[in-house]
Structure formats: structure tokens, C-alpha cells
């Protein structure tokens, strides 16, 4: 097994960059495949081997890998969220924290009027959103040039984004359009309250998963 030359490494990187690979995990796995294949061949053969590998990892294959990984990690995160919400499986500390959380929720529901309770939950959702964005900031990029991102970070950020968008449409926008008059509609208030409770649980589970995951890796 030989060591790759700078030129070979440059070829691999420029090829991979031209493919606009979306996820770091796919990029790294393909990069390792190229390097290992070349390390097991002679330097003279490397242009033809690289050309062959370029055919193997064509644009459509790489896009398919990105898409497939996205689908699989999305499923993994969903399972992890459900596991998180199964508080009875989380040992004594988890169980205690969940009981305290539910007790606070029950007290809040009885003490605070439904219309204001939604605002309290909205604040919780925004705080958890800020937490998720901070922890998974590696998936955020404000540069125009292409950058690969961690699949788990991107999936979590996407989910938080969808959650906030849904919230905007079902709560904030009707409130603004009716100048708050909709808050006197009991059906709206209770429907929103129920959706909000689920949203809070959903965003907290995302925050918990985000805090459990290493910043740059997929492994869940």
C-alpha cells in the first residue's frame, strides 16, 4: 500500500467538489473509497483508476446516495424522537424529570388562560429552536459557495424550520390578520393549545437529540 501524492489528493477533492455533494458523511465515505482504491494500485495507473472511479461515482449515483442517506437518517431521527418521548424507558432520572415536566404542564394549563398559555409554549418552542440552531450551527451556511453539511444536523434544523413555519401559519398569521380577535374563538384557542403541546414535545425531543449528537457525525 502506497501513500497518495498531493496531485492525486487534489484530483479527488476537485472531482468531489464538482459533484456538489450535500452531506459530509457521503463526501467522506467516497473520499475514503477513492483513497483506498488508489493506495492499492500503482501511481502510473492512477489516472485510469480515477477515471473509472469518476464513472462509478457519477453525478446521479452521488445524488442518489445523498437522497438515500437523507431518507435513512430522517427515519433514525424520528425513531430517536419517539424513544425520547417514551419517558418510562429512561431510568429513574428521566422518569423523575418527565413527571416534574408533566406536573408543571398540568399546573400551567389550570392556572394560565388558554390564549396566554399558547404564548408561553410559543416562547418554549422559540427557545428550543434557538438551542437547536446553536448546537447544530455546522449545518448553517451563509456563504454562496457550496459547503457539505452533517446529515443529522441538516435534518434536525429542517424539522425545527418546518415546525416554526407550521406555527407561523396556524397561530401567528391568523392572530395578526384578525388583530388578535381570533383569540376569543374558543375552538381556535383549544385547537391551537393541543397543537402547541405536541409541538413543544416535538421541539424538546429535537433539542435532546441535537444535544446528544456530536457536531460533525451521523452516528445516532
Amino acid at each position, binding site marked *: 500500500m502506497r501513500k497518495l501524492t498531493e496531485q492525486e489528493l487534489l484530483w479527488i477533492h476537485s472531482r468531489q467538489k464538482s459533484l456538489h455533494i450535500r452531506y459530509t458523511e457521503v463526501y467522506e465515505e467516497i473520499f475514503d473509497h477513492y483513497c483506498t482504491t488508489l493506495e492499492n494500485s500503482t501511481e502510473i495507473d492512477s489516472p485510469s483508476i480515477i477515471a473509472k472511479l469518476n464513472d462509478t461515482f457519477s453525478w446521479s449515483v452521488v445524488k442518489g446516495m445523498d437522497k438515500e442517506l437523507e431518507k435513512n437518517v430522517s427515519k433514525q431521527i424520528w425513531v430517536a424522537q419517539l424513544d425520547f418521548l417514551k419517558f418510562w424507558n429512561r431510568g429513574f432520572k428521566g422518569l423523575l424529570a418527565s413527571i416534574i415536566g408533566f406536573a408543571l404542564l398540568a399546573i400551567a394549563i389550570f392556572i394560565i388562560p388558554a390564549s396566554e398559555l399558547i404564548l408561553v409554549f410559543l416562547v418554549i418552542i422559540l427557545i428550543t429552536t434557538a438551542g437547536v440552531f446553536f448546537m447544530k450551527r455546522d449545518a448553517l451556511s451563509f456563504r454562496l459557495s457550496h459547503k457539505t453539511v452533517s446529515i443529522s444536523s441538516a435534518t434536525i434544523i429542517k424539522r425545527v424550520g418546518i415546525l416554526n413555519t407550521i406555527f407561523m401559519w396556524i397561530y401567528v398569521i391568523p392572530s395578526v390578520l384578525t388583530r388578535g380577535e381570533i383569540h376569543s374563538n374558543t375552538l381556535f384557542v383549544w385547537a391551537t393549545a393541543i397543537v402547541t403541546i405536541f409541538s413543544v414535545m416535538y421541539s424538546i425531543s429535537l433539542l435532546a437529540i441535537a444535544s446528544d449528537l456530536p457536531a460533525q*457525525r451521523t452516528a445516532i
Partner: protein
Amino acid sequence: MSNNNLIKGSLQTIILKLLEENEKMYGYEITQRVKELTAGEIKITEGALYPALHKLEAEGLLSTEIQQVDNRVRKYYRLTKDGQKEVTSKMSELQGFVENLQRILTPDLKPGFNI
């Protein structure tokens, strides 16, 4: 020999079986092992291999381990407990299929067999 379509349906079983025999493996290693075992007759396409590995990982049949190798990262796959159980059932499923296929292709070998 172009046998990609035949391999497609058995790819997961091949991966699980190889990982049962080898504690942990990475993508390139799997392709080379298959090539070696079949004397180059079967070549697993990387475009199918990696999505299959990711799918098995998402299904909880494989776990992964990241290792630093010469300034790059390498993702190793290994069987989980569920994966170990799945190998047996996938293997008997595939063996049953191969036996039935054999009966169809060479009915003379099993005279008592009727479709």
C-alpha cells in the same frame, strides 16, 4: 458477466453475511472481499453498496464506528444484536430461494417437484 440485477435483491444478505464473518468492515473492503470470494465474477457497485449499508444502519441492523486513517475518516460497519439475528433469517430465505430456482431451472434434478 453482467449480473447486477441478480445481485440487487441479495445485496443486503451478502453484506450481513460478510459482516457476520468479519467483525467490522468498510465499504471498499466489502467490495474487495466479494470480488475475492467470487474470483471477480460478482462485482458490487458502489452506488448500490453505500445506500444499502446506510439502509441497514437505519434499520438498526448495523452500527458504525468512525476511525481516523491517514488524515481522513473511515466508517466501519458492524452487526448489531438485531443484525446478528437477521443474518440467519435472511440466509435461510436466500437459500430457500436458490433451491427453488434450482428446481425450476433443472427440474430433472428433482423429479418429484411440481409447479
